[in-house]
C-alpha cells in the first residue's frame, strides 16, 4: 500500500547527493520549503545547482530561506529570475564564487512546466532582442520576434504546500503556490513539505492543486517561522 509520508525532513532528503540539481518552490519567503532547506543545510550537501525564483530573501538585516545554503558555500550555480533579493548571493556572485543563469520569471515558470508536460521547447517573445535572449534561436511569427526556450528539469524538487495527504495530493494557500505546482511536475523526485497532513480522502478532489502523481514524498514541516506580524 502506498504511503508517501516521511517522518522527518532529514529522512525525506537523505538521498540527495553532492552535485544535485534541485528546484525550490517559493517566491521571496512565501511558499518556500523552509524545513527541507534547513535539512539540506544540516546534511551538508555541497555543489548543488539551485533553481528558484530567488536565492533566499532578506527581512531587515536577516536573510532567510535559501540564503543559508549560499552563505555556507554549498551552491555552485543559481538559475532564477531575481537574485538581488539577498546580499549573500550578491557577494558570492561578485567574487565569482557562484554561477548565475538569469531567466525572466514567466519563462522560468513556463520552462519548468514544459519539462513536466513533455514539451520539447517553445517560442516566446519575452527577452527577444535583449541580453537575456542573446544566443537563442530566433523566429519571426506573425511579424513579431520570438525566441526558442528549452524545458528545465531537475533531480529533485523541494516544494511546500499547506496540506498534503498520504498519496501526495497537495493544496496551496494564498500566494504560496507560485512555482511549487510546476516544480512538482518537473523533477525526478519531488519532496513536499506541508503544514498539515490530511488523511486518505480528506481533501475534496475538486480542490486539489497538485495531484499526487507528481509527488513522491510528503513530510510535515517541523517548524514554521513567522516572518511577519
Amino acid at each position, binding site marked *: 500500500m502506498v504511503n508517501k509520508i516521511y517522518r522527518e525532513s532529514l529522512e525525506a532528503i537523505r538521498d540527495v547527493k553532492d552535485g544535485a540539481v534541485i528546484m525550490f518552490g517559493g517566491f521571496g519567503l512565501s511558499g518556500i520549503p523552509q524545513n527541507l532547506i534547513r535539512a539540506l543545510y544540516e546534511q551538508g550537501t555541497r555543489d548543488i545547482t539551485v533553481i528558484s525564483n530567488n536565492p533566499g530573501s532578506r527581512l531587515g538585516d536577516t536573510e532567510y530561506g535559501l540564503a543559508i545554503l549560499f552563505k555556507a558555500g554549498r551552491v555552485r550555480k543559481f538559475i532564477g529570475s531575481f537574485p538581488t533579493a539577498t546580499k549573500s548571493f550578491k557577494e558570492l556572485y561578485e567574487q565569482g564564487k557562484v554561477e548565475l543563469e538569469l531567466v525572466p520569471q514567466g519563462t522560468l515558470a513556463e520552462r519548468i512546466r514544459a519539462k513536466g508536460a513533455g514539451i520539447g521547447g517553445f517560442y516566446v517573445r519575452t527577452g*527577444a532582442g535583449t541580453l537575456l535572449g542573446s544566443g537563442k534561436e530566433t523566429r519571426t511569427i506573425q511579424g513579431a520576434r520570438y525566441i526558442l526556450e528549452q524545458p528545465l528539469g531537475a533531480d529533485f524538487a523541494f516544494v511546500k504546500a499547506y496540506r498534503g495527504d498520504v498519496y501526495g495530493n497537495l493544496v*496551496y494557500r494564498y500566494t504560496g503556490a507560485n512555482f511549487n505546482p510546476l516544480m512538482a511536475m518537473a523533477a525526478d523526485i519531488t519532496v513536499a513539505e506541508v503544514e498539515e497532513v490530511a488523511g486518505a480522502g480528506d481533501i475534496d478532489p475538486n480542490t486539489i492543486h497538485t495531484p499526487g502523481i507528481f509527488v513522491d514524498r510528503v513530510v510535515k514541516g517541523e517548524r514554521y517561522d513567522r516572518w511577519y506580524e
Partner: protein
Amino acid sequence: MIAGMSEKDMARRAAMEIRDGFCVNLGIGMPTLVLDFVPSDKTVFFHTENGLLGMGGFARKGEAHPDLVDAAKQPVTYVKGASFFPSDVSFAMIRGGHIDLAIMGAYQVSGNGDLANWTAQGMMPSVGGAMDIVVGIGKIIVMMMHTTKDGRPKIVKSLTYPVTGFRCVSMIITNLCVLEVTEKGLVLKELAPGVSAKDVLACTEADIVMPKEQKTIS
C-alpha cells in the same frame, strides 16, 4: 532643479488611466502608490505576478500572512472576488495579453518607447517579470522621476542601459509632465503645476512634439 509633482500626485495621475473593469499590474516601488487612488465606484483588480489577482493593500500589523505577499515580497491583503493561482497561470495572464495595463518604474525610456528597467552596467542583474510584462501587456505606463538624482535625462534618444523591451511604453508620467508615446514620437500632453514646457525640454534628451497647448495636471 524643479520639483514638480510629489510621488503621490504622480500616482493620482496614473490612477486616472485606470478604467472600470481593468486588471492592472503594478511594479515594485513607486507604482504601488497607485493602489490608494482608485475611486471606489470602479471595479479594478490588481495583479501581482507571484499569483494573485485582486490585491487589496499592504497588510497591517496582525493581518500579515507569510504566504500572502506581493511581487515586492511585502505582506498584502486581497479583495472580494480575488483569485490565487500558480506562476504559469500568472504569466499566462501577462504574456497572453489578458492584463489591461501595467504601471512600472524605469531607468530610461527612449523616444520610441523602448524601455530599460532591469539592470545596469556593473550591477548584479535581476529581471523578475519585467520582460514578460513588456511583451504581454498592451498598455505600459512608466512612472518615474524625470531625471536621475544627479540631473541627467532619463528620457533619451536611444537607450544606454540594457533594454527590457522595444517600443513597449505608451505613456510616461514623471514629476514634471505626462508624455504620450505616439507614431510621431513623444508628445507632451500635460504639465505638472508650476512646470513649463521649456523646463521639460531642458532636462529631456529625446525629441518631444509640442502641441499648441498643454493642460496642467489638476
